[in-house]
């Protein structure tokens, strides 16, 4: 972890050319990032990216191009090291553009990025934060942020938040505040989970958007007779099934029960959980039969190929749609919120909309020296203009900042913003709202796979096993 291997890092270095105070730069950032400077920076980056196509190949780590044109302005100086879990090609491009823009705004600052494969980063986060982490790093809000904050492995950034909080809604403020009342992260993007479909398939076959559970099942049956896989699904990686569990539990038992269940305040043996499994069993026959061996990307492919009708998933599946090389595919993509289940909780319009954040580590060996630059980097990420640089490369990540220019959003993103703003309750995702040890591959993921292998089983024993697993875990600290 956090090795000093420079081949894995991208070093962007710049020396100051003109002396301007940092405030001036920050004030002028919208102009700098939004106007003339950006095309040149982006051009520099994208040309670098095309000359290094191999950077995408190794899954373990991605080596982005290190080429940035000098710019003239001044701000903080020093170095900020950045640990990034953005390993997809499009996200690496976004990161490169953002780092370049940060340097353009702060000549004299050096950004050293350590991009790590997304899953690897996640699996090693505990060791990473205790070892020699970078100053700033990508992470998730919710329990996962609070967990490491409570262990003293991250640095509170209330001073930065005080400057930027007006740029975020209250929901985001809650999402980055830990149990000690301090703010530990800057929310930078989010993406809702919903039921995705292709508009052309629905219009060709005359399908309508199902509003209720009965409509939903009728639609599934209809799709089946039309030779489609009604619901595509890929649970090889274990976590995608959690999305379905979350939405069913939210619709059937409400936000309060769901969040209490995930934090141990309700029991898994509760009859309410049984209901979730029963309802899930009703639609399992409509899922792709080979889900257990499929990754979500493979499952998404059947939606792209019009072999399947619907996909309960996160907005970031747009990455698969935009990688087809046919822009019409992405334009054809649409979604609807999960249907109402006929309970009092339908009105909550609750959904999973995980928020990604940036945090400042605590044990970075260079943090004391770099603190100003590290905090400036966080502040930089709180701007809509910064977040848009990522959004332009990965349209599945919706910016969180109020001042993000939404005029460039495509209709799909606008709709996503809308359903999230209409939701009275927002959850993060099962593995972000619960203990990481509970939600892991040999924990909840395995239990859900056990359920899915035989959905019509009597789940009493399974629920008891889940509860026993929860109770066997070391005492929670959060």
């Amino acid at each position, binding site marked *: 972890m956090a090795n000093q291997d420079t081949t894995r890092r991208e070093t962007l270095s710049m020396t100051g050319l003109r002396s301007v105070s940092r405030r001036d730069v920050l004030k002028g950032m919208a102009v700098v990032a939004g106007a003339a400077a950006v095309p040149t920076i982006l051009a520099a980056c994208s040309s670098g990216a095309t000359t290094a196509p191999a950077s995408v190949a190794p899954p373990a780590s991605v080596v982005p191009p290190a080429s940035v044109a000098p710019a003239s302005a001044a701000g903080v100086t020093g170095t900020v090291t950045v640990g990034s879990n953005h390993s997809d090609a499009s996200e690496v491009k976004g990161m490169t553009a953002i780092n370049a823009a940060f340097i353009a705004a702060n000549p004299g600052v050096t950004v050293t990025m350590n991009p790590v494969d997304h899953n690897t980063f*996640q*699996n*090693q*986060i*505990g*060791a990473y934060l*205790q070892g020699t982490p970078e100053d700033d790093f990508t992470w998730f809000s919710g329990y996962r942020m609070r967990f490491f904050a409570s*262990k003293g*492995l991250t640095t509170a950034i209330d001073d930065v938040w005080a400057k930027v909080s007006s740029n975020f809604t209250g929901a985001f403020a809650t999402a980055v505040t830990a149990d000690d009342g301090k703010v530990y992260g800057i929310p930078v993007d989010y993406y809702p989970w919903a039921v995705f479909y292709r508009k052309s398939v629905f219009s060709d076959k005359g399908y309508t958007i199902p509003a209720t559970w009965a409509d939903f099942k009728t639609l599934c049956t209809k799709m089946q007779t039309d030779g489609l*896989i009604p619901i595509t699904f890929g649970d*090889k*990686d*274990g976590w995608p099934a959690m999305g379905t569990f979350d939405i069913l539990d939210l619709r059937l038992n409400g936000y309060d029960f769901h969040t209490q269940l995930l934090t141990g305040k309700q029991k898994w043996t509760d009859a309410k959980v049984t209901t979730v499994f029963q309802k899930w069993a009703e639609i399992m026959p409509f899922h*792709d*039969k*080979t*889900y*257990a*061996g*499929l990754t979500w990307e493979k499952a998404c492919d059947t939606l792209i190929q019009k072999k399947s009708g619907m996909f309960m998933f996160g907005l970031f599946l747009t990455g698969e749609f935009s990688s087809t090389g046919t822009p019409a595919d992405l334009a054809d993509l649409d979604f609807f919120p999960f249907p109402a289940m006929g309970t009092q909780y339908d009105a909550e319009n609750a959904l999973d909309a995980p928020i990604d954040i940036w945090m400042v580590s605590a044990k970075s060996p260079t943090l004391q020296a770099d603190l100003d630059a590290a905090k400036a980097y966080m502040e930089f990420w709180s701007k809509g203009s910064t977040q848009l640089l990522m959004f332009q490369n990965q349209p599945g990540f919706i910016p969180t900042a109020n001042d993000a220019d939404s005029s460039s959003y495509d209709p799909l993103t606008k709709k996503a913003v809308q359903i999230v703003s209409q939701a009275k309750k927002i959850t993060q995702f099962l593995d972000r709202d619960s203990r*990481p*040890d*509970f*939600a*892991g*591959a*040999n*924990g909840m*993921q*395995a*239990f859900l*796979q*056990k359920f899915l*292998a035989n959905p019509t089983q009597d789940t009493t024993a399974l629920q008891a*096993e889940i509860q*026993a*697993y929860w109770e*066997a*875990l*070391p*005492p929670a600290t959060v």
Partner: protein
Amino acid sequence: MPDPQAIGLAPASVSTGAGAIASGPRKRKHRYSILTRRDKVVLFLMVGIPTALTIIFIWLPTLASILLSFTNYQGIGGITAANIVGLKNYQFLATGYVLFWPAVAHNLMWLLFFVFIASPIGIFFAVLLDREIRGSRFYQNIFYFPVVLSLAVVGFIWELQYAPDGFIDSALGLTSQNNAIDWLGNPSLNIWAVLVAASWRHVGYIMVLYLAGLKSVDPTLREAAAIDGASEFQSFVRVIFPVMAPINIVIVVVTVIESLRAFDLAFIINQGTNGLELLSTLITNNSISEASLIGFGSSIAVVLLVISLVPIVLYLSRVMGSASE
């Protein structure tokens, strides 16, 4: 049993007699040694360095795992008295953790499959190739080829074969959604699918080992057997196989080791979940992942250690037993 003095390493400094030992710590008495100071330094380094390495890299981590298995340590901060949970991890493993017994069963299946199917096939191939059939080299290379590939590549190759739209289902004509066999996804099938993939590699390994052994068998033994009227089968079972005893032991040891350390294929395919649980993947998923249940993972590691000790002890007692005869 081996002579205690022979294993005691005492001869490093041979004393002049029992008197020197009996008189104990009296340092005045001059000791004579057939070893020079230089010899002693060399001996000390030759014995000391490997011993130190063994202690540091094998014994201490093993001991640490055993100690950690009595805690609920999660890898953050120090271990305090509050972390000590006694036998709770083991208790939960045996009675509460649904993935534990399937993992033990899968490891045993792996072992039995290798011992009774993969290794005999490898031996069979070796015997066939030893008969100088035409193209023997060519077949050797083909069967040995999978051994050269990294398991990551083996996993990838077989994933393509087993995919619902992959080679096997297509060859069987099972491509539609309803009748495609989900080789790697079906939790009651996938362990067998993985065993076939693992055997594909293991057979070549055993074949090469055994073939090397067969080449060194004195051909006059076969001739003698043939003259005595033994059939091909009889001469293998009655003459060659017993002569090959040392190689046979190597084969058994290799097979057992390969089965107990089975990890890569299952982990590459789906992280060792959904029917592919093995003790090794449980250890990894519980202790090295974000879950970071280091104490619990260690208790599974100790179980695997205890299981591994059985063949190790049997092997060592056999080797040492024959050495002392």
